[in-house]
C-alpha cells in the first residue's frame, strides 16, 4: 500500500530551483532514506510535504488524499509528523509539557495527554528528565525529545530530518534502534541522513537528490552501485 505519493513536485525560491520535478512514492511500514549533498533540497522537500512551503508545482497525496496546499497543523492531524534539522524544543516548557503538546493533538484531556507523554518519554529513554525545562537538555536528548513529541501525535508517517546529526556513535546507535523499533510497530518513516553507513543499514529504499533534482532511487545496494550517485555524492569509499 502506498502511503505517500509525490507527483512532479517543484519548489522555486525566486530564480533558485530548490526542488525540481520530484516524483516517488512510499510504501506503508517501510523506511525510505533521503540523501544528497548539502543544499540538495532535502529539507525543502520535507517543508513542502508537511505544508510549511506550498509547492510551486506538482501534487502530494497522503493516504490517497490530496494534501497540496493544506496547512501544517491539518497535515499533522491527518497523521504525518516531522522533526526539525535544527531542533526546536519549547525551551521554557518542561520536557513532559513538550511531549504533552504533541499528545494534545489527539485529545482534549490533560490527564490522557500526560499519560501518552509519559509513555513516549519512556520509549525514547528520557523519562528521568520529565520535569526539567526542555532548554536544559543536551543535544542528544533534544533529538530524542523531538522524536517523543511527534510520536505522541500518533502519526502513521514520520519525517526525520537528520536526527543523528551532531551525535556521537553510541547516541546515533540509540537513535537507529529507536527508528527500527518504530518500524516494527508498523509506522512508515522517511529519513534524511548524511551518515551513509546508518542510512544503508536502516533503509528499505533510498532516494537521492542532487541540486534539487532526483538523481536516483532504489535499494541501498543499487544506490551504492550507482555510478552517478558515487560521482555526485558518495565518492569511491562507499562503492
Amino acid at each position, binding site marked *: 500500500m502506498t502511503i505517500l505519493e509525490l507527483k512532479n513536485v517543484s519548489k522555486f525560491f525566486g530564480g533558485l530551483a530548490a526542488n525540481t520535478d520530484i516524483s516517488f512514492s512510499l510504501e506503508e511500514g517501510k523506511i525510505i532514506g533521503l540523501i544528497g549533498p548539502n543544499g540538495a533540497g532535502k529539507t525543502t522537500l520535507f517543508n513542502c510535504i508537511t505544508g510549511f512551503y506550498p509547492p510551486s508545482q506538482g501534487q502530494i497525496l497522503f493516504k490517497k488524499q490530496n494534501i497540496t496546499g493544506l496547512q*501544517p497543523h491539518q497535515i*499533522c492531524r491527518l497523521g504525518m509528523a516531522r522533526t526539525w534539522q535544527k531542533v526546536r524544543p519549547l525551551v521554557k516548557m518542561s520536557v513532559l509539557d513538550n511531549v504533552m503538546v*504533541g499528545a494534545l493533538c489527539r485529545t482534549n484531556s490533560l490527564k490522557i*495527554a500526560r499519560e501518552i507523554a509519559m509513555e513516549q518519554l519512556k520509549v525514547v529513554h528520557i523519562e*528521568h528528565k520529565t520535569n526539567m525545562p526542555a532548554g536544559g537538555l543536551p543535544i542528544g536528548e533534544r533529538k530524542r525529545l523531538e522524536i517523543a513529541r511527534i510520536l505522541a*501525535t500518533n502519526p502513521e508517517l514520520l519525517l526525520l530530518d537528520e536526527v543523528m546529526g551532531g551525535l556521537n556513535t553510541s547516541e546515533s546507535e540509540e537513535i537507529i534502534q529507536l527508528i527500527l523499533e518504530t518500524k516494527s510497530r508498523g509506522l512508515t518513516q522517511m529519513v534524511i541522513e548524511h551518515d551513509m553507513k546508518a542510512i544503508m543499514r536502516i533503509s528499505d529504499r533510498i532516494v537521492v537528490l542532487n541540486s534539487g533534482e532526483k538523481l536516483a532511487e532504489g535499494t541501498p545496494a543499487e544506490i551504492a552501485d550507482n555510478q552517478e550517485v558515487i560521482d555526485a555524492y558518495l565518492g569511491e569509499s562507499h562503492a
Partner: protein
Amino acid sequence: MNSPAKSAITKPPKSKAPPVTYLLATVALLSLLFAFPQIVDSPYTLHMMILIFLSIILGESWNILGGYTGQYSVGHAAYFGTGAYTTMMLMQYAQVPPWLGVWVGVAVAIIVALAIGSICFRLRGPYFVLASIAAAEIIRLTALNVKSFTNGAEGILATDIPPLKLGAILITDFSSKLPFYYTGLILVLLTILMTWLVQHSKLGYCLQAIREDQDAAHSLGINLTLHKNIALIISAAFTSTAGSFYAVYIGFIDPTSVLSLDMSVQIVLICIIGGIGTIFGPVAGAIILVPLSEALRSNMIAQGLFKAGLVGEESSIGIFLKDNLAHSHVLIYGILVVVVILFMPEGVLGFISKFVHGKTRRGVS
C-alpha cells in the same frame, strides 16, 4: 538505591492539592481585602487601591496574549479605549447604565480585536509589535477626528448620568469609592481566575507552545491563527472591561487618557516589571508601579529628601528639585524601569523565585 529515573515516574503528576497553609493564607488575604475599606477609610488610599486593581486587570489581560502566547501587543489602548468610549457614550448620550454598557463595550472590542488581529497576526516578532502600535494609533486618530461622535480632543465628561441603581443601592453617588473598590476587587479575582483556568487547560498548552516556537507548534497540530485569535479575544474582552471601569470611575475620558501609546506601554510594563507569562507577575507589577508613579508624580521623593535632612528645602539644589522633579517623573520612572529590566529580566517575581530557589538548593545540598 532510588534511581532518579524511578523517582521521576513514581512522583504523582504535578497538580497536587495546595497545602493547607496556602489555603489559609489565601482566605486571610481575601478577608483582609474585602474588609479593607472598613478598616481604612482614607479616600486617597482607596483611590490607590482602585488604581492598583485596574492595573492588575490590565496586566493579567495583556498577559494572556503577550505573556502566554508571546504576541507582544503594544496597542492594547485600542481595547481599553474602545471599552471606555462605548460605555461612556452609551451612559452619557443614551442613559444606558454601565453594567449593560460594559457588555456592549466587550462586543465592540472583540470586533475591533478581530479586525486588528486579521492584519497583525500575518506578521511576526518586531513587525507584529509595530503593526499593533499602528492599529491602535488609527483608533486613537479616529476618536480624535470623528468629533460629532466622540467629541474629539475635548473628551467626554459624565454629566447627565441618570440615577443608577443596582438593586436598592444608589451608585450614581460618585463621591463614594466603595462601589468601585468592590467592583475592582471582584474584577481582579475574575481575571486571576481566568488566567489560572487558561494556564491549566489545553488552551494554555497551545498558547505557550506558540510563544516558545510558532513553527514547532504548527507542526504539532496547533492551528496558529485560531489560537492567536482566541488569546486576543480573551485579552481584548478583559481589557475593554477595565476601560469601562476606568471611564465610569474617573468620569472623564479623552483620546489622550484612554487611547494613547503611553497607555499601551503602561499595560506592557506592568507585566514586564512583575514577570511575563505567570499568574501573579501582573499583580507584583501593579503593586510596584502604581505607588511608584504616584510617588514620583506628587513629588514625594523631593519631600522625602527634605525630611531626611539630606537636602535643604531652601538650598539651590532643593529649589531645583522642587521645581523639576515632579515634571521629570516620567523620565525617572523610565530610568527605574530600564534598571529593573536590565537586572531582573524575568521580572521581580522571577528574580525573587530565583533567589529563593537558589537559597533552598544550597540549603539542601
